[in-house]
């Protein structure tokens, strides 16, 4: 299973290295979303309470994760758009690879891409929104587990919509409500990591971990019946 996963992940990452769709289109898209949020929420507006921080800095954690989720929609869509061409999906089924391995491989490849995206968007948000960082450990744990959750759930739902003409509109509808707990947990944990105290965030990191585990489990169990047909 893990060997198959490594094969699929390497294949997907190699396709990305050649086509550069994530680097050339999805990362810039995420940056545009960050900029638009900055324009929509006035950066100069400081409200009372919360140490007189600007509104933009206060809502930065949530905005950052919304930008990541929107970009992730494109990334998982891309992960299966690659398979939709030239009957690749059938070819993938005929290779005899373990479906659970295919799931883990595709999710891992998207996760690697998302990490790079989050790094760039994170630097962008740090500069654009002017946020401090109180706890690096909490921030790192949040990013790792949130990414795992988004990619695992995203891969399951993108697979459900794989090969359909309406894929691009169906995946957001199916996936976004499911990611509510992730968005909540990630925003609250990131807020705690940026502004402290970090102790507020760790319990949400647990929730993020549980969500990621649940969806990795769902993917491993269900991918077989999604792919057979």
């Amino acid at each position, binding site marked *: 299973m893990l060997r198959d996963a490594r094969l699929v992940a390497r294949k997907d990452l190699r396709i990305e290295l050649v086509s550069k769709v994530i680097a050339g289109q999805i990362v810039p898209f995420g940056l545009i979303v960050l900029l638009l949020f900055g324009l929509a929420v006035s950066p100069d507006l400081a409200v009372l309470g919360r140490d007189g921080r600007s509104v933009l800095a206060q809502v930065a954690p949530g905005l950052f994760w919304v930008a990541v989720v929107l970009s992730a929609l494109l990334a998982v869509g891309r992960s299966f758009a690659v398979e939709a061409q030239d009957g690749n999906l059938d070819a993938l089924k005929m290779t005899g690879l373990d479906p659970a391995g295919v799931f883990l491989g595709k999710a891992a490849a998207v996760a690697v891409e998302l990490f790079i995206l989050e790094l760039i968007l994170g630097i962008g948000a740090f500069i654009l929104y002017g946020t401090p960082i109180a706890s690096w450990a909490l921030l790192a744990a949040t990013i790792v587990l949130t990414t795992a959750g988004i990619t695992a759930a995203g891969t*399951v739902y993108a697979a459900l919509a794989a090969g359909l003409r309406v894929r691009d509109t169906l995946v957001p509808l199916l996936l976004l409500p*499911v990611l509510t707990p992730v968005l909540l947990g990630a925003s609250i944990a990131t807020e705690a990591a940026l502004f402290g105290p970090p102790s507020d965030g760790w319990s949400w990191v647990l929730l993020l971990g549980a969500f990621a585990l649940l969806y990795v489990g769902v993917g491993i169990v269900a991918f077989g*019946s999604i792919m057979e047909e």
Partner: protein
Amino acid sequence: MGRAQSSSEADVSPSASASADAATPASRAQRLSTSSRLTRVLGIAGLLLLGIMLAFGLWFSGPEIAMRDSVRLLYIHVPSVFVAYLCFGVTFLGSVQYLRNQSSFWDLMAHAAAEIGVLFVVFVLVTGSLWGKPTWGTYWQWDPRLTSTSMMLLMYVGYLALRRLDLPGEVRSQRAAVLGIVSILNVIVVHYSVKWWRSLHQSQTFGIDTQMDGLMLFSFFLGVIAFLAIGAWLLVHRFRVGWMESQLDEIRLEHALVERRNEGRAYPREDDLLQVRPGES
């Protein structure tokens, strides 16, 4: 008033209109109807009970101490929550059964239940908002139950979107079954995370302790029975509509096959066309 309303609604039900145009024995045999004795009994009983419940809920029972008259909304609000949850439970069960033995009965049942469930969740949200206006002073609060219920609605709207796609039957059923199972997990996860989120931000709860006296409890109890009957009534009808649609697809497929076969011939053979005709209507 309750009785008059219930009988007028029963008139427009498919059972009544279908039996009206079934004049000749031939048309009776071929008539397409989703009604049966079961649905007639369920429908009439449900609407009658609803009428009686309205009479008790609106006139015989008194206002509540804290919520005043808005408590009367709960007699229809809470039962529709029950029906919605039951429907999504049926969708889950149907999805599991479909994956286990590819039973088209459970596939259609899962679809029908999800649709009825969505209908009742919309009703829950509407009555909940109407209740919120006098109680909270606003139609919408970021209350955990309200938030997670609207997320649940969107999830099942997504499920129905997947079901409506123009896909080969088995592919769609298979994927919908996986989604039907996973959706229940999502409902649970979203429910608890949203609850936790609100409990961290504000300790104040919006729930109000209700003290229901005898007549109120009776109205509420009637509401539960009435809504269960109406839910089951709609579910059976929706299931049969789904079954007819699947039959229609098969007939269309047969018809298309015959037409395609005839394209290759200079003169279409009449018996080929005749074969399809009885099933066509």
